[in-house]
């Protein structure tokens, strides 16, 4: 009896190992990995079932999508055929050699109506590796109950004056994630600087970055010390902060708790005359190389369907996404959506997140630099020099 049980246990141990084997390829079936919210995928799935009934598109949600792809990206039996993800990893995956050029898979001229910023974002070393679907940028949001329309700051100095008047006793005139690279990039861009150049040089305009850091300090002094995502969100959603810079993902929760939310253009930096220019993230479809070869017909059919304005309109209405296809904005309902229109106008100034592999380490470098300057009171010049050498060391160690 004991022996039988032991043998059964041994077998039970081996079965899952054996099950790791391959899966047969079915050319009419496409597996798409994603990390998006349900509303987006429901809209996509409903649209594709109708538009391309001959292809079965299966959406699979992956929480650690990039790590999984790094492991199985060149193995057709375990990798997906396509995936939906932000454009900023395009460079990494292209260098790894798992992505297909999507241009040959699309009908000629179909991308002419796309917002230029989205195509620029999806291009790495001259090759388009993503079909952009929609994009996100940060927006200047305010709570109308506390900030009247005529008080909305047009410049950063006006913003500062408003903060001085309205901060204190547990209330804040304005809050943002001041020590997070993604948010602080808007200030750096406003001074004409950037975090990394197209060819991987960290801080190509050092003086602009230092100026931005120095100028930003007085704003930091009027904000809470800890400003990670949850603190900033809670302050704004509980009505303890009058204004914030946040992503479109904050909008549903703000409406839910009854905030009288309004959106304004980004303030202009007095010194340079440039608006705070946030990063944008372009979400779209990447095709894996082997899928483009083995399942070309199905892939082409799906991509072509995704180029129609209808899906952009569906996404905008379902989840407030700003479509990459400019034709979508002609739709009456989309034109009425304040949030979507605000993102469209921000797209004119927004800077796509760099998609080169070097950016991966720059997130950490910049957030260390910001922490040193904003939270530990380090000298800007010294902290910058340290960050620059850290960046150069890390970039060298990537190779």
């Amino acid at each position, binding site marked *: 009896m004991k022996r039988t049980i032991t043998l059964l246990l041994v077998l039970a141990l081996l079965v899952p190992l054996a099950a790791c084997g391959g899966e047969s390829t079915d050319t009419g079936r496409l597996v798409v990995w994603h990390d998006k919210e349900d509303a987006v995928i429901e809209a996509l799935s409903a649209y594709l079932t109708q538009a391309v009934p001959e292809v079965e598109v299966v959406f699979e949600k992956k929480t650690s999508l990039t790590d999984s792809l790094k492991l199985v990206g060149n193995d057709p039996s375990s990798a997906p055929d396509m995936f939906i993800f932000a454009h900023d990893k395009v460079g990494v995956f292209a260098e790894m050699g798992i992505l297909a050029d999507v241009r040959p898979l699309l009908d000629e001229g179909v991308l002419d109506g796309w917002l230029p910023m989205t195509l620029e974002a999806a291009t790495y070393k001259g090759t388009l590796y993503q079909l952009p679907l929609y994009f996100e940028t940060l927006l200047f949001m305010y709570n109308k109950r506390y900030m009247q329309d005529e008080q909305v700051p047009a410049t950063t100095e006006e913003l500062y004056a408003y903060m001085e008047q309205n901060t204190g006793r547990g209330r804040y005139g304005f809050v943002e994630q001041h020590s997070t690279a993604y948010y602080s990039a808007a200030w750096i861009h406003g001074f004409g600087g950037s975090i990394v150049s197209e060819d991987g040089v960290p801080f190509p305009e050092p003086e602009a970055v230092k100026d931005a850091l120095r100028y930003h300090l007085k704003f930091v002094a009027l904000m809470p010390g*800890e400003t*990670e995502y949850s603190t900033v969100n809670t302050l704004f959603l509980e009505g303890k902060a009058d204004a914030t810079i946040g992503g479109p993902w904050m909008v549903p929760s703000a409406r839910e708790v009854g905030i009288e939310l309004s959106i304004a253009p980004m303030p202009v930096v007095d010194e340079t005359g440039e608006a705070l220019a946030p990063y944008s993230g372009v979400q779209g479809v990447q095709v894996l190389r082997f899928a483009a070869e083995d399942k070309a017909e199905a892939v082409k059919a799906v991509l072509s369907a995704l180029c129609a304005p209808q899906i952009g309109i569906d996404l905008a209405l379902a989840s407030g996404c700003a479509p990459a296809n400019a034709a979508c904005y002609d739709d009456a309902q989309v034109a009425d959506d304040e949030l979507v229109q605000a993102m469209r106008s921000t797209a004119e100034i927004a800077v796509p997140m760099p998609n080169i592999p070097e950016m991966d380490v720059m997130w*950490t470098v910049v957030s260390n630099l910001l922490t040193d300057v904003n*939270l530990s009171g380090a000298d800007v010049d010294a902290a910058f020099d340290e960050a620059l050498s850290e960046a150069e060391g890390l970039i060298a160690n990537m190779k």
Partner: protein
Amino acid sequence: MEDRLKRQRRGWLVSYLWSAPSLALIALIVVFPILYTFFISLTNMNVYHWFDYTVIGLDNYVRALFVFDSGFLSALINTVLWTVVNMAIQLVLAFVLASLLNIRKLRLRKLYKTLLMFPWAMPGYVSILLWKTGMFNSEFGLLNQWMEALGLEARRWLSTDVSAFICCTVVNIWLALPFMLMIMDGAMQSIDRSYYESAVLDGANWLQRSWSITIPCIRPIIAPAVIITVFTTFKQFDVIYLLTQQMGAKTGSGLHTILTYAYENAFITNNYGYSSAISIIIFLLLLAFSARWQPGGEGEK
């Protein structure tokens, strides 16, 4: 004679056969990753050579030594201090609590035990983030609400090295205490009551009884638990990283252990060859430490 040898050999074979599944499992999940990491450390596996990597010898080790700079040295000192402080507090606290749990005629013993086990039942990640937002957050945290209620100024608990070290220690102890407590409690229950009875007759007080009976009796039982805890504390990553260094939520403290330091200075480069070399060096360091710290073998009294 030959028969006996044969039987012995067969017994030997059979015992290996029966333990084969677990040996295979250990080989698969413990030995294989270490060997594979070592193999990767000899290659140039990185973003630019992800699937077409080649063996490049010891180059990665030469570069890895540059990570072991002054920053690494202070991280190493921090790690040792962190391990010693945490172990000392854990042992003392667990001993006191286990002694209290073993008081005769204690009421609601099971309730206390369940409550004391609770931190262990929660996923560490969740507990740590709850501590971070629920206790230490400067805007909403309980600590600052108490400070305000007492008329004191709110402060940022995780912003300096020293206060971050203290906060991390508190959270780590909260997480790790149940394990030590459970082992100590079990060990104490295995001590024969008659020792204590005769000690009481001889007029020994609690301290004397603890020193001469409890501690010597539980030592051999808790030794393996201490070794395990030294390891987990030494290579603790979650507590320090999540409390003070999480991406987008850095608090301003520069507290680093060797693992968080290696993470920030190597692992984020996506260079697997180079990072594996660093992992192997840290692994060897850990081995050296554990050989040094092995608390008394079985033979020792």
